[in-house]
């Protein structure tokens, strides 16, 4: 038996109120008012597909260092790097055992995550070990577009394997069709779509039924027995129409979270699956669909374990952790949709020195410090001489991963002089519970309640963007534990 062994998700904390998008743009396109319901998850300036992927992975798998997996696959159409394997960054940020780990980025379709999931299941089926698929999306949208109203940012992770299953794979099917409901050409930032009614009638309502019907026939499962029909779409009424057409129970319809998260693109199938797995009961059948130049369909049956295993926070927790954002300009600025005056301080050359980056990747990618084997003192960065003045021993430090550690804020400030995409810049001295202390950046701070003594955890975020060369540097930032 193969199937799902863990799941998790991440949604950026900020939720842009759609009303403010409509308020700004309805003068131009009054049709936007009709879409101005609810909110959408919106990346902070220092979040992207990779950083969200680390959070979704941690939600499902924790941050214990040295986890052994057969494969880590990152699925997205908005990967920060076209040529630097993004999943390797993810693997190092999660401190995975890399002695024999297959990493892979799967992209170019909204179906990327379901196709990646099928490949991961093949890895497990071949007896190679457990695999994790992380789907993450941070798509750019044009100002005043329908996509701007409908798209949101988010990520989900699904782990698969042979043991301790939460849901077993019953069957799957893939049917490619060059149906272009939208596309984004090489070198373009934004999607170009086609009329929704055509997408619905010729796409969703024809391509999906062909695959689903074939899968049900192949597996001998009756549509009426499907408890969860997980189908991503930015057309809210389509899943209901299909459920009725198939003869599935009405309760099988999955909320597409269009008014709370927005469509997270290639991540959306797994975000919705993770959400539905939270609600599934033992024995429930879940039918997952991926749509995009054809259709993937995967059928799972929940095991008894589904009732007791839970992700750290899950989609529900992430939904509840949202904070309303009413500043549309902030959304445009973070996504670089405006030519904005960032000030002369922003003009500093932020070139990444790749050789130095490589030497220091244990610190930068994995937040690994050192622990002195002589006096047990934890320190970060790791150094030749122990920082403890009573010890000072030479070359006694073993690597000590600290990405899962919490700490307390000893000193801090909110800096309005230094350049930051989202001022003020918070930073200060974090004293870790395990020992070790580091002056570090902070993000997602609530000014009203933040002070010394606050408990923080550390998270992989964008540190600097080199707009001259298109590179971005990552490092770990402290985030208040809420």
């Amino acid at each position, binding site marked *: 038996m193969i199937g799902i062994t863990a799941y998790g998700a991440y949604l950026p904390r900020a939720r842009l109120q759609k009303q403010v998008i409509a308020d700004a743009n309805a003068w131009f396109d009054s049709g936007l008012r009709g879409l101005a319901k609810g909110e959408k998850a919106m990346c902070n300036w220092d979040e992207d597909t990779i950083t969200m992927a680390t959070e979704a992975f941690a939600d499902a798998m924790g941050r214990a260092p040295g986890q052994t997996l057969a494969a880590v696959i990152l699925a997205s159409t908005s990967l920060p790097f076209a040529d630097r394997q993004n999943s390797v960054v993810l693997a190092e940020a999660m401190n995975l055992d890399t002695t024999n780990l297959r990493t892979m980025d799967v992209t170019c379709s909204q179906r990327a995550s379901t196709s990646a999931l099928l490949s991961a299941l093949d890895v497990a089926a071949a007896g190679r070990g457990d695999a994790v698929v992380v789907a993450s999306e941070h798509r750019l949208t044009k100002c005043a577009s329908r996509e701007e109203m409908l798209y949101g940012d988010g990520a989900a992770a699904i782990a698969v394997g042979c043991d301790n299953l939460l849901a077993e794979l019953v069957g799957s099917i893939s049917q490619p069709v060059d149906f272009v409901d939208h596309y984004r050409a090489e070198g373009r930032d934004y999607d170009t779509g086609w009329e929704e009614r055509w997408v619905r009638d010729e796409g969703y309502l024809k391509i999906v039924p062909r695959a689903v019907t074939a899968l049900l026939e192949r597996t001998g499962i009756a549509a009426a027995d499907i408890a969860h029909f997980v189908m991503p779409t930015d057309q809210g009424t389509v899943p209901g129409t299909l459920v009725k057409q198939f003869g599935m129970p009405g309760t099988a319809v999955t909320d597409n979270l269009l008014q709370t998260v927005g469509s997270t693109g290639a991540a959306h199938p797994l975000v919705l699956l993770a959400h539905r797995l939270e609600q599934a009961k033992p024995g429930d059948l879940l039918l997952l669909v991926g749509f995009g130049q054809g259709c993937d369909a995967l059928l799972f049956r929940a095991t008894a374990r589904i009732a007791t295993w839970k992700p750290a926070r899950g989609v529900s927790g992430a939904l509840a952790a949202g904070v309303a954002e009413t500043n549309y300009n902030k959304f445009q600025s973070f996504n670089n949709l405006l030519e904005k005056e960032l000030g002369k301080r922003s003009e500093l050359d932020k070139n990444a020195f790749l050789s130095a*980056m490589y030497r220091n990747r244990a610190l930068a990618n994995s937040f690994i410090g050192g622990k002195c084997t002589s006096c047990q003192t934890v320190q970060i960065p790791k150094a030749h001489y122990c920082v403890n003045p009573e010890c000072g021993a030479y070359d006694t430090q073993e690597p000590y991963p600290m990405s899962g550690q919490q700490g307390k804020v*000893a*000193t801090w400030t909110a*800096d309005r*002089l230094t350049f930051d995409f989202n001022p003020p*810049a918070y930073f200060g001295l974090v004293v870790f519970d395990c020992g070790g202390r*580091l002056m570090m950046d902070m993000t997602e701070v609530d000014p009203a309640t933040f002070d010394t003594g606050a408990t923080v955890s550390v998270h992989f975020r964008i*540190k600097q963007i080199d707009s001259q060369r298109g590179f971005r540097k990552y490092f770990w930032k402290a985030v208040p534990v809420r």
Partner: protein
Amino acid sequence: MAKGIRDKVVILGAGCSKFGERWDAEPADLMAEAFEECLADAGIEKNQIQAAWQSTGIDAFSVGPGAMPLSIALRLPYIPVTRLENYCASGTEAFRAATYAVASGACDIALAMGFEKLKDTGYGGLPQRSRGVTNDMYYPNLSAPGMFAQLASGYRAKYKTDKLDLKRAMAHVSVKSHANGARNSKAHLQRAITEEQAMNAPMIAEPIGLFDCCGVSDGAACAIVTTPEIARSLGKRDLVSVKALQLCASNGEEGGFGNWDGSYVATTRIAAKRAYEEAGIKDPRREVSMTEVHDCFSITELVTMEDLFLSPDGGAVKDVLDGVFDADGAVPCQIDGGLKCFGHPIGASGLRMLYEMYLQLTGRAGPRQLANPKIGLTHNLGGFPHQNVVSVAIVGRYDA
């Protein structure tokens, strides 16, 4: 056993340019301005200088590396000239090098020149700059006020100081320095301010507001040093001698280990203890006549009063508000306006402080002259509260 530097070297002359936004001046102009005053004061010829040290903090924004900016600007006669950089302690480092050279007997007369041309960036504040390839990978996204603001949060947490009380004491620090700066024609900022203005100024880095920050200035300051014997032979009386010169550099312990809580600067305490010992000072609050400390930000000055043992731990807020460090207080601080108002051309600052001490000790400080000062202390703090270089210099009357 080393005996220290006490009374081995005297200041033969000192000079200082007008500090400020010197849109008119190249670094060479600033150096010449300070040097002409210094040379005339010393009463020697340029070719009597046998070695020179130049201090600049941020070379990339002024003159580039090396010591030629100084040797060419002053047309020094092919003598050894060296550039020194040690963050904000650079000026004092140049003075230390010149002093040690004379004390060692390697040369008779040496020059220390510090300068900085900061106002060619196109924006306020210090130049935004790299901290080094590797450091940039993990150092926080900091500005100078942001780093020194850490002291305020640490101090508040340790002594349970009310946020407003601390802010008021910080405001008093700045109000005092502005009052002093108003009596100094060379100062960058010469206007008095009110406590209300300081309290309500725009926030720069919580809780540091605009008036909690020192001026970012262009300027140059210098000193010529020699032995007491040579000074006497040149007809000098009322000699000002070096009593102590100490430097302390962090080793990463404050920020990386132990119990440092952000309420003090560990290196200042170590350098101060050594300097008092070198100078033979046992009760600094009684024996030190005046100080010029590194008031890059008001909170730095406040904390430094405790670190120099002029206030008891946790007592600086009260002492500041009681006026202990005002011009008419027990231990006047920044009588020339300090970094706050005289300005802070980084490489020049340590020498500017010594220039003021020298004027005060020789009774030439004009409208801000203190009554009969005997011992002056200068202090520089370069870097960040948790990781820095601190210099403490003590000068005084040679006969004191």
